């Protein structure tokens, strides 16, 4: 890879952002500010994140599907960007902008795959990408994971270790009780409290709504 490519690729462009691409809560905050008080600085920030996210989305998809040509990447990224740009003013929930962009990417990708002309042998199976889940974990796994860890970070201190062991490390109640030195019913009560707080967490509910 040439030096010029190193400087001009997605990583160098994304490095201009003040937050990571997967920090959806901060993205949604930035978008809400932009809508409340439109200005060139906010517009540039929102557009830059949007472009970087879309480009990363399709990079991941193109990496997984070797039949796609690199020349198609530019077209599909631009098409998706234009779609987002022209329709985002219709968005009602400003605090779900990042999740909405993800849905636009998904729909555009489904269209791209289904309309793409390919030479397919008769014995081959249909393209699996057409039947896609609502939340594409091959792209948004990081954002969903960060939403969970951020929600854990917002819990009261005494609940955080239990939440981490239960929902990040996937430990059973008995294992958590053994590690923390508390009784299993206590751990069950803690998990109940954690779930109650998670249900009110805006960062998690923005993603959970995609499962409805």
């Amino acid at each position, binding site marked *: 890879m040439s030096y010029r490519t190193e400087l*001009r690729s997605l990583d160098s462009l994304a490095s201009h952002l003040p937050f990571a691409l997967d920090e959806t809560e901060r993205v949604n905050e930035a978008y*809400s*500010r932009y809508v409340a008080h439109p200005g060139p600085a906010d517009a540039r920030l929102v*557009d830059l994140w949007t*472009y970087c996210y879309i*480009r990363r989305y399709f*990079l991941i998809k193109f990496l997984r599907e070797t039949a796609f040509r690199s020349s198609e990447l530019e077209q599909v990224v631009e098409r998706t960007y234009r779609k987002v740009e022209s329709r985002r003013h219709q968005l009602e929930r400003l605090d779900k902008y990042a999740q909405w962009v993800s849905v636009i990417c998904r729909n555009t990708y489904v269209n791209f795959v289904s309309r793409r002309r390919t030479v397919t042998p008769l014995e081959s199976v249909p393209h699996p990408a057409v039947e896609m889940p609502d939340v594409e974990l*091959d792209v948004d796994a990081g954002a969903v994971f960060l939403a969970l860890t951020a929600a854990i970070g917002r819990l009261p201190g005494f609940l955080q270790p239990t939440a981490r062991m239960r929902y990040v490390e996937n430990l059973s109640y008995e294992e958590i009780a053994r590690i923390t030195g508390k009784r299993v019913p206590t751990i069950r009560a803690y998990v109940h409290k954690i779930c109650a707080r998670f249900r009110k967490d805006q960062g998690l509910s923005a993603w959970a709504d995609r499962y409805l």
Partner: protein
Amino acid sequence: MKLSDSMPIALWNAVRRGAMPFRRRRALRALLVDARHPLEPDNDDRLMAFWAVLARTGLRDHQGELLDAGRRFARRMQRDPQRRAAWTHMRLRLDALEGALDAHAHFERISGHRIEPGETVTNRPAARHHVRSRNLRSPARRALPRRGMLATLAVWLVLFTWTNTTAPDPFAFEPVGQSGYAWEQVGERTRGATPLPAGGGTVTYAAALEHARSARYTWLGLFPSYDATVLGEARDMMALAIEQADGGYSVPEQAYRTLDIIDGLLAQGAR
């Protein structure tokens, strides 16, 4: 009731609305299972492209948890030669895809914005905006120093205890009952509208004591000081009350104690 075509839809919508809390719970449960997707070894093949792009775009400090998941993935990959080969192939393809399209030029062309090298695109300070959304919390507010608040509270508690130990409120003594009523209540009307003995200066005792108490002022319960003018007025009121006391009622001893306290405070140089 006449059935219409829209009724089944309305009924269905009502059922859906009723079932919404259950659906939300189910959705959250599904999300919590999916959230630990990057940590599951079974998903390594599916997430290889994700990790390849993430490794390229870089993980920042605030993604520490994801960084840990990435390290776990790298360790698992190092143990599997087949996956290692697939990883190398994926990195090469990523280089080819990235090399074919200049990200900066493409972004500037389709968005119309210009990004200078080394510039960080930031939004305006959050303080200048008033966005009405309850889930919008600025990072600064999220990082409120809770420990600092607790330390301040502890310092205040220590100072408050120290102040009340070394210089307690001199007028906060236990009131002595007179005819079964608190001294301060003498002269007031009770619930049964039976007037309490309002002989002589009884009402003035309460007023004088109240006035004397109002001379004390503190800052957050700390550093008490006294207003000499108010204390002087309270002393005159109390002296008058004692002088006008009805012979049928004995002068409460607190009246003389209050006078002594006021004199003491004035002698200490209350300002």
